[in-house]
């Protein structure tokens, strides 16, 4: 069966082509005031994938997500959502995506219920119609449904915003830093909810500055200064960490860091909680020689072990490289 679309005069098959990705980005660049917010970004997300964009403020996450949600036009490159172009077919795309912007964008002076009702109506549906989909999330804030949205706690606001983004059963969910500023418990709960949604087949793309959340995604892209430094599953990223890494603990972390930095062969020395992570390019380095060296420097309570890199180690390594 052929459908002839009047606007673009393309011919679509009624059954979507097998290999069509829900999100497909090719060579997107965007400048703001002479600065490269995004520099030649390309990637694809598969159906039902939970894809994470990890990077600090200013890395370009929000800019990228605004392009995907058709709110900004890229300078160069192409982005497709379910095969539709973000620039030309923005009206159709807006019917089918769910979006949670970086800051709370719901109406503070409307109640939980009123907000949800509003977005349901705008998308031509009702709370009842898709209640099953948002039930797990909404049930946690339902006792507060008459409360004004502005008076909710951070965690509850996130749950409400997610419910509003899902109310029209989108096939693609775009979440911009949904866990920033939210307490640790709510953060965990939020990611549990995302995992459940993924299992229903909703494609989810999330951005976050928290490196530890990377491990909760199927694949992640580490982004810094508008460029993607690497893009693969968290396990693979960790596997590709190139150097030998040690975790060192002593009673005086400040002195420890300084003393480790004195070691000429040490490539990087970074604090990681109560230990220091020190990396060596050479393979010969081992715990014993480190121990000896630090003992002579007068450190007590030493604990040294070889460590597996964390996502954060990998991120910093990639940052140093560029």
């Amino acid at each position, binding site marked *: 069966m052929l459908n002839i679309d009047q606007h673009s005069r393309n011919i679509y098959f009624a059954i979507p082509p097998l290999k069509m990705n829900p999100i497909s980005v090719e060579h997107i660049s965007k400048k703001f005031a002479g600065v490269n917010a995004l520099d030649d970004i390309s990637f694809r997300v598969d159906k039902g994938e939970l894809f994470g964009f990890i990077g600090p403020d200013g890395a370009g996450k929000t800019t990228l997500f605004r392009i995907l949600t058709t709110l900004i036009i890229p300078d160069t490159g192409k982005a497709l959502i379910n095969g539709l172009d973000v620039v030309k077919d923005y009206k159709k795309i807006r019917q089918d995506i769910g979006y949670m912007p970086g800051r709370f964008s719901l*109406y*503070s002076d409307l109640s939980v219920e009123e907000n949800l009702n509003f977005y349901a109506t705008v998308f031509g549906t009702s709370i009842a119609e898709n209640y099953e989909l948002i039930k797990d999330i909404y049930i946690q804030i339902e006792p507060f449904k008459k409360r004004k949205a502005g008076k909710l706690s951070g965690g509850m606001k996130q749950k409400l915003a997610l419910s509003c983004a899902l109310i029209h059963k989108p096939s693609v969910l775009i979440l911009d830093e949904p866990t920033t500023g939210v307490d640790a418990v709510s953060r965990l709960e939020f990611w549990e909810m995302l995992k459940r949604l993924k299992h229903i087949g909703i494609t989810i793309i999330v951005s976050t500055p928290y490196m530890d959340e990377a491990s909760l995604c199927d694949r992640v892209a580490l982004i810094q200064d508008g460029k993607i430094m690497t893009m693969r599953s968290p396990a693979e990223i960790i596997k590709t960490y190139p150097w030998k890494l040690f975790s060192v603990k002593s009673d005086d972390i400040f002195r420890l860091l300084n003393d480790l930095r004195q070691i000429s062969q040490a490539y990087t020395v970074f604090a990681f909680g109560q230990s220091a992570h020190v990396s060596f390019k050479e393979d010969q380095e081992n715990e014993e020689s480190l121990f000896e060296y630090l003992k002579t420097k007068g450190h007590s309570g030493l604990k040294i072990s070889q460590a597996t890199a964390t996502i954060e180690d990998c991120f910093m390594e990639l940052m140093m490289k560029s």
Partner: protein
Amino acid sequence: MKRFWGFVVKEFYHIFRDYRTLLILFGMPAVQMLLFGYVITNEIKDAQIAILDLSKDEVTRRISEKVLSSGYFILEKNLTSFDEVDQVFREGNVKLALIFEPEFAKNLDKAGKAKVQIIGDASDPNTANILVNYLQGILSNYLISLNAEKIPMQITPEVRMLYNAEMKGVYMFVPGLMAMLLMLISALMTSLSITREKELGTMELLLVSPLKPLQIIIGKVSPYVFLAFVDACIIIILGNTVFGVPIVGSVVLLLFESLLYICMALSLGILISTITSSQQIAMMVSLVALMLPTILLSGFIFPVENMPWILQWLCHIMPPKYFITIIKSIMLKGNGFEYIAFETAVLVGFTLLFILLSVKKFKVRLA
């Protein structure tokens, strides 16, 4: 003391680096000085006058010449009969009418007295008063020039003030107030409405929804149409009951025109909000750029005809000016639609223009 000074220096930096503050500090006073200076004047010149000369003799011609060469008056029309007087005032192109009784010169010569009738448009009582005084002054000057001969002579003017016999200032203020208040309420409210969404960030989600720009705009305007209309009714009722401003013409027509004006002001508010991104700016633009011209340049208080031609031209693109004409026409003169068809068309035109521009300027994207 030094830390205080350090603070003051910092404040100067902020001021000089923000062009908006500079605009307010220096631009605004300059503009206001010029505006106020040129607009506020109690002298009137070139007021349109109609003359009905039922005598057509040498004396009346001489008096008419003096009147027309005084600089205060310009001849708009020479009337031929009494019936034309009412019409010419309804049309609103004449501020004053001078009527000479038949056989004027003969009466002056033989009986030493002659009568004239002076009819003023008192829907603007101040102007009417001033013009009547000018005219009476010209008449008595003429008499004085004649009385070089010793015979006492009199020209008795019978003065009639149309539409506002008691010369109540409130007849002039209420229509002007209506124009100003409705403009302010409507434009201010809608201009804040969209910018508030932009500021709070809720616009971001609205844009990503299937709502079309026209739906968003009309959706935002609708509640205010109703509310502002209620306001208009309140103002009219108060004006009528408390201040005694009459509604000589059709109430229905008055309400319809008020509704039209409200729609125009609401659309203007929407247009303002599509071009500003902060509520503060929207409020300032609404208050300063709308209220000031409405008061000064709409003929509300100061007659348009007295202003330098450049400001007069500006007045012609002020929607409130047309609305004030319409209200006075209906309330005070009791005119029907034919007399205000032009002004109505202008308001409709402005409304459509603002809506069109708003839809065009409404950003479907963030940047």
